[in-house]
Protein backbone atom coordinates (compact mmCIF):
# COMPACT_ATOMS: atom_id res chain seq x y z
CA UNK A 1 0.00 0.00 0.00
CA UNK A 2 2.65 2.47 1.09
CA UNK A 3 4.80 1.28 -1.79
CA UNK A 4 2.06 2.08 -4.29
CA UNK A 5 1.58 5.64 -3.04
CA UNK A 6 5.34 6.17 -2.99
CA UNK A 7 5.74 4.76 -6.47
CA UNK A 8 3.23 7.21 -7.84
CA UNK A 9 4.75 10.31 -6.32
CA UNK A 10 8.37 10.87 -7.35
CA UNK A 11 8.82 13.41 -4.57
CA UNK A 12 7.79 10.85 -1.96
CA UNK A 13 10.14 8.38 -3.57
CA UNK A 14 13.05 10.82 -3.28
CA UNK A 15 12.19 11.44 0.37
CA UNK A 16 11.80 7.74 1.12
CA UNK A 17 15.14 7.01 -0.47
CA UNK A 18 16.82 9.78 1.58
CA UNK A 19 15.25 8.42 4.74
CA UNK A 20 16.72 5.00 3.94
CA UNK A 21 20.17 6.51 3.44
CA UNK A 22 19.83 8.60 6.61
CA UNK A 23 19.05 5.47 8.62
CA UNK A 24 22.03 3.74 7.00
CA UNK A 25 24.25 6.71 7.90
CA UNK A 26 23.16 6.51 11.53
CA UNK A 27 23.81 2.76 11.62
CA UNK A 28 27.33 3.25 10.22
CA UNK A 29 28.07 5.97 12.78
CA UNK A 30 26.71 3.71 15.51
CA UNK A 31 28.85 0.76 14.38
CA UNK A 32 31.97 2.91 14.23
CA UNK A 33 32.71 2.78 17.94
CA UNK A 34 31.99 -0.95 18.04
CA UNK A 35 34.78 -1.59 15.54
CA UNK A 36 37.42 -1.26 18.22
CA UNK A 37 39.62 -4.30 18.67
CA UNK A 38 39.07 -5.16 22.32
CA UNK A 39 37.30 -2.92 24.75
CA UNK A 40 37.24 0.80 23.87
CA UNK A 41 36.78 1.68 27.53
CA UNK A 42 40.00 -0.07 28.51
CA UNK A 43 41.77 1.62 25.58
CA UNK A 44 40.58 4.99 26.84
CA UNK A 45 41.28 4.53 30.54
CA UNK A 46 44.39 2.39 30.41
CA UNK A 47 45.03 -0.95 32.07
CA UNK A 48 45.06 0.19 35.68
CA UNK A 49 41.66 1.85 35.75
CA UNK A 50 39.33 1.05 38.64
CA UNK A 51 36.18 -0.96 38.10
CA UNK A 52 33.98 1.99 39.03
CA UNK A 53 35.58 4.33 36.50
CA UNK A 54 35.25 1.63 33.83
CA UNK A 55 31.58 1.16 34.63
CA UNK A 56 31.02 4.93 34.61
CA UNK A 57 32.78 5.36 31.27
CA UNK A 58 30.83 2.45 29.83
CA UNK A 59 27.54 4.16 30.71
CA UNK A 60 28.84 7.46 29.40
CA UNK A 61 29.74 5.93 26.04
CA UNK A 62 26.47 4.01 25.86
CA UNK A 63 28.20 0.64 25.76
CA UNK A 64 25.92 -1.12 28.27
CA UNK A 65 23.80 -4.08 27.30
CA UNK A 66 23.38 -5.93 24.01
CA UNK A 67 23.84 -4.30 20.59
CA UNK A 68 20.10 -3.76 20.02
CA UNK A 69 19.83 -2.12 23.45
CA UNK A 70 22.84 0.07 22.71
CA UNK A 71 21.36 1.01 19.36
CA UNK A 72 18.08 1.96 21.03
CA UNK A 73 19.94 4.13 23.54
CA UNK A 74 21.93 5.74 20.71
CA UNK A 75 18.92 6.49 18.50
CA UNK A 76 16.95 7.69 21.52
CA UNK A 77 19.76 10.10 22.34
CA UNK A 78 19.94 11.34 18.75
CA UNK A 79 16.20 12.02 18.77
CA UNK A 80 16.78 14.36 21.70
CA UNK A 81 19.80 15.91 19.97
CA UNK A 82 22.07 14.21 22.48
CA UNK A 83 25.26 12.78 20.98
CA UNK A 84 26.95 12.01 24.25
CA UNK A 85 29.63 13.83 26.17
CA UNK A 86 33.13 14.53 24.92
CA UNK A 87 35.70 12.48 26.82
CA UNK A 88 38.43 15.12 26.44
CA UNK A 89 36.49 18.37 26.85
CA UNK A 90 33.88 17.09 29.28
CA UNK A 91 31.05 18.99 27.59
CA UNK A 92 28.29 17.73 25.35
CA UNK A 93 29.26 16.78 21.80
CA UNK A 94 26.35 18.72 20.33
CA UNK A 95 27.59 21.90 21.98
CA UNK A 96 31.12 21.47 20.62
CA UNK A 97 29.79 20.76 17.13
CA UNK A 98 27.37 23.67 17.44
CA UNK A 99 30.30 26.00 18.02
CA UNK A 100 32.46 24.59 15.22
CA UNK A 101 29.91 23.93 12.50
CA UNK A 102 29.17 27.61 11.63
CA UNK A 103 32.85 28.13 10.76
CA UNK A 104 32.89 25.09 8.46
CA UNK A 105 29.58 26.05 6.85
CA UNK A 106 30.82 29.57 6.11
CA UNK A 107 34.03 28.17 4.66
CA UNK A 108 31.98 25.82 2.49
CA UNK A 109 29.65 28.58 1.38
CA UNK A 110 32.48 30.85 0.23
CA UNK A 111 34.26 27.90 -1.41
CA UNK A 112 31.26 26.75 -3.38
CA UNK A 113 30.48 30.30 -4.52
CA UNK A 114 34.03 30.72 -5.75
CA UNK A 115 33.96 27.32 -7.43
CA UNK A 116 30.79 28.16 -9.35
CA UNK A 117 32.06 31.61 -10.31
CA UNK A 118 35.28 30.13 -11.73
CA UNK A 119 33.74 27.05 -13.27
CA UNK A 120 31.02 28.73 -15.35
CA UNK A 121 33.17 30.96 -17.59
CA UNK A 122 35.80 28.23 -17.99
CA UNK A 123 33.28 25.57 -18.93
CA UNK A 124 31.42 27.84 -21.37
CA UNK A 125 34.68 28.77 -23.08
CA UNK A 126 35.92 25.18 -23.21
CA UNK A 127 32.56 23.94 -24.53
CA UNK A 128 32.50 26.58 -27.26
CA UNK A 129 36.12 26.00 -28.31
CA UNK A 130 36.62 22.28 -27.68
CA UNK A 131 39.68 21.96 -29.92
CA UNK A 132 41.37 25.17 -28.85
CA UNK A 133 44.57 25.58 -26.95
CA UNK A 134 42.69 26.66 -23.81
CA UNK A 135 40.68 23.43 -23.78
CA UNK A 136 43.75 21.20 -23.87
CA UNK A 137 45.48 23.38 -21.33
CA UNK A 138 42.39 23.08 -19.14
CA UNK A 139 42.38 19.28 -19.44
CA UNK A 140 46.01 18.95 -18.40
CA UNK A 141 45.73 21.66 -15.77
CA UNK A 142 42.65 20.07 -14.23
CA UNK A 143 44.40 16.68 -13.96
CA UNK A 144 47.28 18.47 -12.31
CA UNK A 145 45.25 20.42 -9.76
CA UNK A 146 43.18 17.38 -8.85
CA UNK A 147 46.45 15.54 -8.19
CA UNK A 148 47.72 18.23 -5.86
CA UNK A 149 46.73 17.51 -2.26
CA UNK A 150 44.69 20.32 -0.69
CA UNK A 151 47.12 20.67 2.20
CA UNK A 152 50.02 21.21 -0.20
CA UNK A 153 48.17 23.94 -2.11
CA UNK A 154 47.01 25.35 1.23
CA UNK A 155 50.46 25.60 2.75
CA UNK A 156 51.93 27.04 -0.46
CA UNK A 157 49.12 29.61 -0.60
CA UNK A 158 49.72 30.47 3.04
CA UNK A 159 53.41 30.92 2.35
CA UNK A 160 52.92 33.07 -0.74
CA UNK A 161 49.88 35.16 0.20
CA UNK A 162 50.22 35.47 3.95
CA UNK A 163 53.95 35.31 4.59
CA UNK A 164 55.52 36.81 1.47
CA UNK A 165 52.87 39.10 -0.03
CA UNK A 166 51.07 39.77 3.26
CA UNK A 167 47.68 40.07 1.53
CA UNK A 168 45.97 37.58 3.84
CA UNK A 169 46.02 36.93 7.59
CA UNK A 170 48.35 34.09 8.57
CA UNK A 171 45.80 32.08 10.48
CA UNK A 172 42.57 31.98 12.41
CA UNK A 173 39.24 33.64 11.93
CA UNK A 174 37.49 36.46 13.75
CA UNK A 175 33.76 37.12 13.58
CA UNK A 176 31.38 35.82 10.93
CA UNK A 177 30.58 36.53 7.31
CA UNK A 178 30.60 39.09 5.74
CA UNK A 179 33.47 40.56 7.81
CA UNK A 180 35.16 37.15 8.08
CA UNK A 181 35.65 37.09 4.31
CA UNK A 182 39.16 38.48 4.82
CA UNK A 183 39.97 35.28 6.73
CA UNK A 184 38.03 32.92 4.50
CA UNK A 185 38.94 33.94 0.96
CA UNK A 186 42.32 32.25 0.88
CA UNK A 187 41.26 28.88 2.36
CA UNK A 188 38.22 28.94 0.08
CA UNK A 189 40.38 29.66 -2.95
CA UNK A 190 42.50 26.65 -2.01
CA UNK A 191 39.47 24.39 -1.78
CA UNK A 192 37.95 25.69 -5.00
CA UNK A 193 41.19 25.07 -6.93
CA UNK A 194 40.65 21.34 -6.59
CA UNK A 195 36.88 21.55 -7.16
CA UNK A 196 36.76 23.84 -10.20
CA UNK A 197 38.26 21.20 -12.55
CA UNK A 198 35.68 18.62 -11.48
CA UNK A 199 32.69 20.92 -11.84
CA UNK A 200 33.95 22.62 -14.99
CA UNK A 201 34.57 19.31 -16.72
CA UNK A 202 31.03 18.03 -16.14
CA UNK A 203 29.51 21.40 -16.98
CA UNK A 204 31.57 21.71 -20.17
CA UNK A 205 30.51 18.23 -21.30
CA UNK A 206 26.90 19.06 -20.51
CA UNK A 207 27.04 22.37 -22.41
CA UNK A 208 28.72 20.65 -25.33
CA UNK A 209 25.81 18.24 -25.60
CA UNK A 210 23.28 21.07 -25.20
CA UNK A 211 24.87 22.90 -28.13
CA UNK A 212 24.04 19.99 -30.39
CA UNK A 213 20.32 20.33 -29.56
CA UNK A 214 18.03 21.77 -32.20
CA UNK A 215 16.67 24.66 -30.13
CA UNK A 216 20.17 26.08 -29.76
CA UNK A 217 20.67 26.03 -33.51
CA UNK A 218 17.30 27.70 -33.95
CA UNK A 219 18.27 30.36 -31.43
CA UNK A 220 21.51 31.03 -33.31
CA UNK A 221 19.61 31.31 -36.58
CA UNK A 222 17.10 33.63 -34.93
CA UNK A 223 20.00 35.80 -33.89
CA UNK A 224 19.78 35.42 -30.10
CA UNK A 225 23.03 36.71 -28.73
CA UNK A 226 24.89 37.80 -25.65
CA UNK A 227 23.70 37.16 -22.15
CA UNK A 228 20.27 35.80 -23.08
CA UNK A 229 21.88 33.24 -25.32
CA UNK A 230 24.50 32.21 -22.76
CA UNK A 231 22.04 31.80 -19.90
CA UNK A 232 18.80 30.62 -21.42
CA UNK A 233 20.11 28.50 -24.26
CA UNK A 234 23.42 27.25 -22.95
CA UNK A 235 23.63 27.23 -19.18
CA UNK A 236 20.13 26.62 -17.89
CA UNK A 237 19.48 23.45 -19.89
CA UNK A 238 22.92 22.18 -18.88
CA UNK A 239 22.60 22.55 -15.13
CA UNK A 240 20.64 19.38 -14.32
CA UNK A 241 23.53 16.92 -14.82
CA UNK A 242 25.79 19.00 -12.58
CA UNK A 243 23.26 18.93 -9.75
CA UNK A 244 23.74 15.20 -9.35
CA UNK A 245 27.38 16.07 -8.77
CA UNK A 246 26.40 18.33 -5.89
CA UNK A 247 26.41 15.68 -3.17
CA UNK A 248 29.85 14.56 -4.35
CA UNK A 249 31.05 18.15 -4.28
CA UNK A 250 29.68 18.76 -0.81
CA UNK A 251 31.32 15.58 0.45
CA UNK A 252 34.64 16.63 -1.06
CA UNK A 253 34.16 20.11 0.42
CA UNK A 254 33.63 18.68 3.87
CA UNK A 255 36.71 16.48 3.54
CA UNK A 256 38.99 19.21 2.18
CA UNK A 257 37.67 21.50 4.91
CA UNK A 258 39.31 19.13 7.41
CA UNK A 259 42.83 19.62 6.08
CA UNK A 260 42.35 23.24 5.05
CA UNK A 261 40.97 24.21 8.46
CA UNK A 262 44.00 22.64 10.07
CA UNK A 263 46.38 24.46 7.72
CA UNK A 264 44.69 27.84 8.25
CA UNK A 265 43.91 27.30 11.94
CA UNK A 266 40.19 27.77 11.51
CA UNK A 267 38.18 26.58 14.52
CA UNK A 268 35.75 24.44 12.50
CA UNK A 269 34.57 20.84 12.61
CA UNK A 270 37.68 19.67 10.74
CA UNK A 271 40.08 20.95 13.36
CA UNK A 272 37.77 19.56 16.03
CA UNK A 273 37.78 16.16 14.31
CA UNK A 274 41.57 16.01 14.03
CA UNK A 275 41.92 16.85 17.72
CA UNK A 276 39.25 14.32 18.62
CA UNK A 277 41.05 11.60 16.65
CA UNK A 278 44.36 12.46 18.32
CA UNK A 279 42.74 12.37 21.77
CA UNK A 280 40.72 9.22 21.02
CA UNK A 281 37.60 11.14 21.94
CA UNK A 282 35.19 8.48 20.62
CA UNK A 283 31.87 10.28 21.21
CA UNK A 284 33.16 13.45 19.58
CA UNK A 285 34.58 11.56 16.58
CA UNK A 286 31.32 9.69 16.20
CA UNK A 287 29.32 12.91 16.41
CA UNK A 288 31.33 14.76 13.76
CA UNK A 289 31.36 11.76 11.42
CA UNK A 290 27.59 11.47 11.80
CA UNK A 291 27.04 15.18 11.13
CA UNK A 292 29.14 15.05 7.96
CA UNK A 293 27.11 12.11 6.67
CA UNK A 294 23.74 13.60 7.56
CA UNK A 295 24.75 16.88 5.94
CA UNK A 296 25.64 15.18 2.67
CA UNK A 297 22.35 13.25 2.70
CA UNK A 298 20.45 16.48 3.30
CA UNK A 299 22.18 18.29 0.45
CA UNK A 300 21.73 15.44 -1.98
CA UNK A 301 18.03 15.25 -1.12
CA UNK A 302 17.66 18.93 -1.93
CA UNK A 303 19.67 18.44 -5.13
CA UNK A 304 17.40 15.54 -6.13
CA UNK A 305 14.28 17.61 -5.55
CA UNK A 306 15.64 20.56 -7.53
CA UNK A 307 16.69 18.24 -10.34
CA UNK A 308 13.19 16.81 -10.41
CA UNK A 309 11.66 20.29 -10.50
CA UNK A 310 13.92 21.42 -13.35
CA UNK A 311 13.59 18.26 -15.38
CA UNK A 312 10.97 15.70 -14.25
CA UNK A 313 12.33 13.16 -16.76
CA UNK A 314 15.44 12.72 -14.63
CA UNK A 315 13.58 11.33 -11.61
CA UNK A 316 13.53 7.56 -11.87
Amino acid sequence: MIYRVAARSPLLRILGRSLFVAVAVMLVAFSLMRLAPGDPVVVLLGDNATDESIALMRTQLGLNGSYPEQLATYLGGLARGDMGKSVVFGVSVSRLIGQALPVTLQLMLVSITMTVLFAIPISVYVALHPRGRVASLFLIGSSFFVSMPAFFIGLLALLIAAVWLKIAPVAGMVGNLPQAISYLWLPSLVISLSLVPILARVLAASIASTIREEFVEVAIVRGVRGRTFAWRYLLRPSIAPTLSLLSYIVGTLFASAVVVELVFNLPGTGTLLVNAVAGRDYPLVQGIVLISGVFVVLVSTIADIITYKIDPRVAL
Partner: protein
Amino acid sequence: MRLVRWFRELPRAGQVGVLIIAMVLLLGLIVPAISPYGVEGTESGSNEAPSLAHPFGTDQLGRDIITRSFAATHLDVFVAVVGVLVPLLIGTVLGALAATTDIRVIRGGIALLIDGINAFPFLILALGVIAVVGTGITGMIVAIALTSWARYAKLARTRAATLRELDFVSALKLLGYSRVRIVIRHILPNCFRETAAYGVSDFTLVILTVAALSFLGAGVRPPTPEWGSMMADGRMFLMSAPWLLVGPGIVLTITAFGVSLIGEALKDRVRA
Protein backbone atom coordinates in the same frame (compact mmCIF):
# COMPACT_ATOMS: atom_id res chain seq x y z
CA MET B 1 55.34 -7.95 -25.89
CA ARG B 2 51.74 -7.59 -24.78
CA LEU B 3 52.89 -4.88 -22.44
CA VAL B 4 54.53 -2.99 -25.31
CA ARG B 5 51.36 -3.24 -27.38
CA TRP B 6 49.24 -2.13 -24.44
CA PHE B 7 51.52 0.88 -24.03
CA ARG B 8 51.44 1.72 -27.74
CA GLU B 9 47.68 1.69 -27.86
CA LEU B 10 47.28 4.06 -24.90
CA PRO B 11 46.41 7.69 -25.66
CA ARG B 12 49.38 10.07 -25.54
CA ALA B 13 48.49 11.39 -22.06
CA GLY B 14 48.31 7.85 -20.71
CA GLN B 15 51.77 7.08 -22.11
CA VAL B 16 53.13 10.15 -20.38
CA GLY B 17 51.49 8.92 -17.16
CA VAL B 18 53.10 5.48 -17.46
CA LEU B 19 56.52 7.08 -18.04
CA ILE B 20 56.05 9.37 -15.03
CA ILE B 21 55.16 6.48 -12.74
CA ALA B 22 57.99 4.32 -14.06
CA MET B 23 60.40 7.16 -13.44
CA VAL B 24 59.11 7.85 -9.92
CA LEU B 25 59.32 4.17 -8.97
CA LEU B 26 62.80 3.88 -10.47
CA LEU B 27 64.02 7.00 -8.67
CA GLY B 28 62.45 5.59 -5.52
CA LEU B 29 64.91 2.71 -5.85
CA ILE B 30 67.92 4.60 -7.16
CA VAL B 31 67.97 7.78 -5.09
CA PRO B 32 68.06 6.16 -1.61
CA ALA B 33 70.59 3.60 -2.92
CA ILE B 34 73.12 6.05 -4.36
CA SER B 35 72.51 8.80 -1.81
CA PRO B 36 75.46 9.39 0.52
CA TYR B 37 72.95 10.10 3.31
CA GLY B 38 70.85 7.56 5.18
CA VAL B 39 67.05 7.76 5.32
CA GLU B 40 67.16 8.33 9.04
CA GLY B 41 70.70 9.65 9.19
CA THR B 42 71.14 13.00 10.92
CA GLU B 43 74.69 13.80 9.88
CA SER B 44 74.03 17.24 8.36
CA GLY B 45 72.99 20.59 9.82
CA SER B 46 69.27 21.06 10.46
CA ASN B 47 66.96 23.04 8.14
CA GLU B 48 69.67 23.70 5.57
CA ALA B 49 68.45 25.41 2.39
CA PRO B 50 68.67 23.47 -0.89
CA SER B 51 72.24 23.28 -2.14
CA LEU B 52 74.38 21.04 -4.34
CA ALA B 53 75.03 18.73 -1.41
CA HIS B 54 71.29 18.62 -0.53
CA PRO B 55 69.20 19.42 -3.64
CA PHE B 56 65.94 19.56 -1.60
CA GLY B 57 67.61 20.84 1.58
CA THR B 58 67.62 19.14 4.98
CA ASP B 59 64.87 18.85 7.59
CA GLN B 60 64.71 19.83 11.25
CA LEU B 61 66.79 16.81 12.28
CA GLY B 62 69.38 17.31 9.55
CA ARG B 63 68.07 14.51 7.33
CA ASP B 64 68.46 14.82 3.56
CA ILE B 65 65.03 15.61 2.12
CA ILE B 66 65.55 14.34 -1.44
CA THR B 67 66.66 10.96 -0.08
CA ARG B 68 63.63 10.74 2.20
CA SER B 69 61.17 12.01 -0.43
CA PHE B 70 62.15 9.23 -2.81
CA ALA B 71 62.59 6.64 -0.08
CA ALA B 72 58.93 7.29 0.78
CA THR B 73 57.79 6.37 -2.75
CA HIS B 74 57.59 2.65 -2.20
CA LEU B 75 55.77 2.85 1.13
CA ASP B 76 53.20 5.32 -0.19
CA VAL B 77 52.66 3.45 -3.44
CA PHE B 78 52.47 0.13 -1.58
CA VAL B 79 49.86 1.39 0.90
CA ALA B 80 47.86 2.90 -1.96
CA VAL B 81 48.03 -0.30 -4.04
CA VAL B 82 46.81 -2.38 -1.10
CA GLY B 83 44.26 0.35 -0.34
CA VAL B 84 42.89 -0.03 -3.86
CA LEU B 85 43.14 -3.82 -4.30
CA VAL B 86 41.55 -4.96 -1.02
CA PRO B 87 38.37 -2.86 -1.31
CA LEU B 88 38.25 -3.61 -5.05
CA LEU B 89 38.12 -7.32 -4.31
CA ILE B 90 35.69 -7.14 -1.38
CA GLY B 91 33.48 -4.56 -3.02
CA THR B 92 33.14 -6.33 -6.35
CA VAL B 93 32.25 -9.67 -4.75
CA LEU B 94 29.76 -8.14 -2.31
CA GLY B 95 28.23 -5.95 -5.01
CA ALA B 96 27.80 -8.87 -7.39
CA LEU B 97 26.36 -10.92 -4.53
CA ALA B 98 23.85 -8.21 -3.67
CA ALA B 99 22.63 -8.09 -7.25
CA THR B 100 22.34 -11.83 -7.80
CA THR B 101 21.16 -13.29 -4.50
CA ASP B 102 17.50 -13.95 -3.78
CA ILE B 103 17.97 -13.74 -0.03
CA ARG B 104 16.42 -10.43 0.88
CA VAL B 105 18.33 -9.96 4.13
CA ILE B 106 21.69 -10.13 2.35
CA ARG B 107 20.55 -7.91 -0.48
CA GLY B 108 19.01 -5.34 1.87
CA GLY B 109 21.92 -5.48 4.31
CA ILE B 110 24.50 -4.85 1.59
CA ALA B 111 22.35 -2.09 0.09
CA LEU B 112 22.08 -0.42 3.49
CA LEU B 113 25.84 -0.60 4.01
CA ILE B 114 26.64 0.65 0.49
CA ASP B 115 24.38 3.67 0.82
CA GLY B 116 25.36 4.37 4.41
CA ILE B 117 29.10 4.28 3.77
CA ASN B 118 29.03 6.10 0.44
CA ALA B 119 27.11 9.01 1.95
CA PHE B 120 30.08 9.97 4.13
CA PRO B 121 32.98 12.06 2.90
CA PHE B 122 35.73 9.46 2.38
CA LEU B 123 38.44 11.19 4.39
CA ILE B 124 36.16 11.87 7.36
CA LEU B 125 34.88 8.32 7.69
CA ALA B 126 38.43 6.99 7.28
CA LEU B 127 39.59 9.31 10.06
CA GLY B 128 36.73 8.06 12.22
CA VAL B 129 37.72 4.43 11.68
CA ILE B 130 41.37 5.22 12.44
CA ALA B 131 40.36 6.93 15.68
CA VAL B 132 38.88 3.61 16.76
CA VAL B 133 41.22 0.98 15.29
CA GLY B 134 44.42 2.97 15.82
CA THR B 135 46.96 4.81 13.66
CA GLY B 136 49.84 3.34 11.69
CA ILE B 137 50.05 1.59 8.33
CA THR B 138 47.69 -1.23 9.35
CA GLY B 139 45.11 1.12 10.80
CA MET B 140 45.21 3.19 7.65
CA ILE B 141 44.75 0.18 5.35
CA VAL B 142 41.89 -1.14 7.51
CA ALA B 143 40.23 2.28 7.43
CA ILE B 144 40.56 2.62 3.66
CA ALA B 145 39.37 -0.94 3.06
CA LEU B 146 36.34 -0.55 5.33
CA THR B 147 35.25 2.69 3.66
CA SER B 148 36.27 2.22 0.02
CA TRP B 149 34.68 -1.13 -0.77
CA ALA B 150 31.23 0.43 -0.91
CA ARG B 151 32.14 2.52 -3.98
CA TYR B 152 33.22 -0.61 -5.88
CA ALA B 153 30.22 -2.55 -4.59
CA LYS B 154 27.87 0.06 -5.99
CA LEU B 155 29.45 -0.19 -9.44
CA ALA B 156 29.54 -4.00 -9.36
CA ARG B 157 25.93 -4.24 -8.18
CA THR B 158 24.69 -2.10 -11.06
CA ARG B 159 26.77 -4.05 -13.57
CA ALA B 160 25.72 -7.44 -12.20
CA ALA B 161 22.07 -6.41 -12.18
CA THR B 162 22.31 -5.56 -15.90
CA LEU B 163 24.24 -8.74 -16.66
CA ARG B 164 21.77 -11.12 -15.04
CA GLU B 165 19.05 -9.92 -17.40
CA LEU B 166 21.13 -10.56 -20.52
CA ASP B 167 20.43 -13.37 -22.97
CA PHE B 168 23.66 -15.22 -22.40
CA VAL B 169 22.83 -15.65 -18.72
CA SER B 170 19.38 -17.05 -19.57
CA ALA B 171 21.10 -19.38 -22.02
CA LEU B 172 23.48 -20.57 -19.30
CA LYS B 173 20.50 -21.20 -17.01
CA LEU B 174 18.80 -23.23 -19.75
CA LEU B 175 21.97 -25.23 -20.18
CA GLY B 176 21.55 -26.22 -16.56
CA TYR B 177 24.53 -24.51 -15.02
CA SER B 178 24.16 -23.81 -11.33
CA ARG B 179 23.59 -20.28 -10.17
CA VAL B 180 26.84 -20.25 -8.22
CA ARG B 181 28.79 -21.28 -11.31
CA ILE B 182 27.09 -18.62 -13.44
CA VAL B 183 27.90 -15.93 -10.91
CA ILE B 184 31.50 -16.97 -10.34
CA ARG B 185 32.47 -17.86 -13.90
CA HIS B 186 30.43 -15.38 -15.90
CA ILE B 187 29.09 -12.47 -13.90
CA LEU B 188 31.99 -11.76 -11.53
CA PRO B 189 34.73 -11.53 -14.21
CA ASN B 190 32.56 -9.09 -16.09
CA CYS B 191 32.08 -6.97 -12.97
CA PHE B 192 35.80 -7.02 -12.26
CA ARG B 193 36.59 -5.57 -15.65
CA GLU B 194 34.49 -2.52 -14.79
CA THR B 195 35.61 -2.07 -11.17
CA ALA B 196 39.27 -2.53 -12.11
CA ALA B 197 39.06 0.33 -14.58
CA TYR B 198 37.54 2.48 -11.85
CA GLY B 199 40.25 1.28 -9.47
CA VAL B 200 42.98 2.97 -11.52
CA SER B 201 41.30 6.35 -11.26
CA ASP B 202 40.48 5.66 -7.60
CA PHE B 203 44.21 5.18 -7.06
CA THR B 204 44.76 8.95 -7.25
CA LEU B 205 42.18 9.55 -4.53
CA VAL B 206 43.64 6.82 -2.31
CA ILE B 207 47.26 7.98 -2.63
CA LEU B 208 46.19 11.54 -1.76
CA THR B 209 44.12 10.24 1.16
CA VAL B 210 47.05 8.22 2.52
CA ALA B 211 49.19 11.35 2.47
CA ALA B 212 46.39 13.45 3.98
CA LEU B 213 45.84 10.97 6.82
CA SER B 214 49.54 10.97 7.66
CA PHE B 215 49.62 14.76 7.35
CA LEU B 216 46.83 14.88 9.97
CA GLY B 217 48.86 12.63 12.24
CA ALA B 218 46.57 9.64 11.77
CA GLY B 219 48.68 7.56 9.38
CA VAL B 220 52.32 6.58 9.09
CA ARG B 221 54.26 7.62 12.15
CA PRO B 222 57.68 9.29 12.10
CA PRO B 223 60.55 8.61 11.65
CA THR B 224 59.42 6.42 8.72
CA PRO B 225 59.72 8.59 5.60
CA GLU B 226 56.24 9.28 4.22
CA TRP B 227 55.13 12.24 2.11
CA GLY B 228 52.23 13.33 4.32
CA SER B 229 54.08 13.17 7.61
CA MET B 230 57.15 14.87 6.08
CA MET B 231 54.85 17.67 4.94
CA ALA B 232 53.42 17.90 8.45
CA ASP B 233 56.98 18.63 9.60
CA GLY B 234 57.17 21.22 6.84
CA ARG B 235 54.10 22.92 8.25
CA MET B 236 55.93 23.58 11.53
CA PHE B 237 58.81 25.28 9.73
CA LEU B 238 56.78 26.90 6.96
CA MET B 239 58.26 30.36 7.44
CA SER B 240 61.89 29.48 8.16
CA ALA B 241 62.34 26.39 5.97
CA PRO B 242 59.64 25.99 3.29
CA TRP B 243 61.75 23.37 1.47
CA LEU B 244 60.69 20.81 4.08
CA LEU B 245 57.26 20.99 2.51
CA VAL B 246 58.14 21.47 -1.14
CA GLY B 247 60.31 18.37 -1.69
CA PRO B 248 57.84 15.68 -0.64
CA GLY B 249 54.96 17.76 -1.99
CA ILE B 250 56.39 17.80 -5.50
CA VAL B 251 57.15 14.07 -5.55
CA LEU B 252 53.64 13.29 -4.25
CA THR B 253 51.96 15.62 -6.77
CA ILE B 254 53.94 14.19 -9.69
CA THR B 255 53.07 10.63 -8.66
CA ALA B 256 49.38 11.40 -8.29
CA PHE B 257 49.43 13.30 -11.60
CA GLY B 258 50.99 10.33 -13.39
CA VAL B 259 48.39 7.96 -12.00
CA SER B 260 45.51 10.26 -12.87
CA LEU B 261 46.77 10.54 -16.47
CA ILE B 262 46.75 6.74 -16.74
CA GLY B 263 43.32 6.60 -15.12
CA GLU B 264 41.88 9.10 -17.61
CA ALA B 265 43.35 7.17 -20.54
CA LEU B 266 41.97 3.84 -19.34
CA LYS B 267 38.55 5.32 -18.63
CA ASP B 268 38.36 6.62 -22.20
CA ARG B 269 39.29 3.18 -23.45
CA VAL B 270 36.60 1.41 -21.38
CA ARG B 271 34.01 3.84 -22.71
CA ALA B 272 35.13 3.43 -26.31
